[in-house]
């Protein structure tokens, strides 16, 4: 066993190495580690938050989608109803117009029939008178039978 000044040399170098580590090594590396730990913790927290807000957004989106679907369904319903109404309206309008036209046509026919009848009546009367005149000219006095002819023409 031999103890000598080596022990002092060792103690001095120990002090220097500890000082060096304390000054240039430990704080620097610990700072890096701590910063990384913080970054990771923040990252995890952000991820957690993002997950929550994603969930919220999805719920929101689902809600909006449902609302939109419902609105669309309502709109289609309304449109269908409206279309039916329009068709119904158009049909009834068309029927009414057709009815009117028919009526007008019928009236016209009626009128023309009447006037034709009147004309015919007049023509027949005249023809009758003409015929009768022809006959009477040959056989009887026109005046003596005028009354009889008027009666006849009124009956036609």
């Amino acid at each position, binding site marked *: 066993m031999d103890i000598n*000044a080596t*022990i002092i040399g060792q103690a001095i*170098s120990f002090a220097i*190495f500890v000082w*060096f*580590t304390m000054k*240039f*090594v*430990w704080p620097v590396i610990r700072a890096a580690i701590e910063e990384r730990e913080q970054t990771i913790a923040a990252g995890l927290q952000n991820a957690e938050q993002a997950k929550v807000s994603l969930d919220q957004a999805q719920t929101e989106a689902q809600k909006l989608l449902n609302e939109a679907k419902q609105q669309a369904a309502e709109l289609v319903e309304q449109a269908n109803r409206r279309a039916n109404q329009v068709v119904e309206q158009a049909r009834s309008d068309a029927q009414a117009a057709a009815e009117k036209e028919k009526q007008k046509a019928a009236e016209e026919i009626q009128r023309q029939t009447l006037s034709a009848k009147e004309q015919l009546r007049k023509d027949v009367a005249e023809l009758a008178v003409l015929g009768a005149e022809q006959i009477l000219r040959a056989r009887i006095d026109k005046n003596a039978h005028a009354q009889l002819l008027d009666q006849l023409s009124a009956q036609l």
Partner: protein
Amino acid sequence: MAGASSSDYIRHHLTNLTLGKIDGEWTIAHSAAEAAEMGFWRFHIDTLGWSIGLGMIFCLMFWAAARKAKVAGASRFQLAIEIVIDFIHNEVKQIFHKKNALIAPLCLTIFVWVFLMNLMDLIPVDWFPHLFYLAGVPYMKIVPSTDPNITLGLGFSVFLLIIGFSIKEKGVGGFMGELTMMPFSAKSPIGKLCLLPVNFLLEVVGLITKPISLGFRLFGNMYAGEMIFILIALLPMWAQWTLSVPWAIFHILVILLQAYIFMVLSLVYLSMAAEDH
């Protein structure tokens, strides 16, 4: 070495390269008698040199990692260094409860430095002594922790820190009180005075034991391990590797464990010094 006997061989392996003064001149001792002649003021320049060299390797390695330390995209080297730093950080956090900027770097230095010094034990025992012998250097011990000067140098540095921590936390009066009023206490001043020498003796012995046990535990373990390597090296060729390989593998555990024990015990002693009883 040059046809020496077994005892010469062992003695050669266990002798330090010593630098000291003979007749007022700094010179290297060529025998144990010459070394003894130098008195206290001589240095084991082999173990001290390897010790300082390894300490510088430790500092430069960790400094390189610190200089290039990145928060994101750290290199594997940096991560490896960070594993060690984190390990020490957790140990310190568990054992030492006060805030102190010195304690963690101190533990890191002790752990890595002692580990590196012990690691030299795994280098085949003949290589360096023989190489240096061929180069004209008479002795070369490369495992610093097999030199009690080295281990006690660390132990007594921790001892000074224990005293420093005690005084810093409790004041000179508090520290003295701790040395003289415990473990036996009395109510009356006279009783206290009577118990003072007993207490003082017990406490001082307890205090002194700490650095000595620290230093000798490490020295003893490493010295024994080294001795077994030397003895194995004396055996015939076929027996050497069959024994030295298992012993070396076992020794990997020992060197790590001894570094850890030295570090944790220093930490425990210092935390005891810094905390009130």
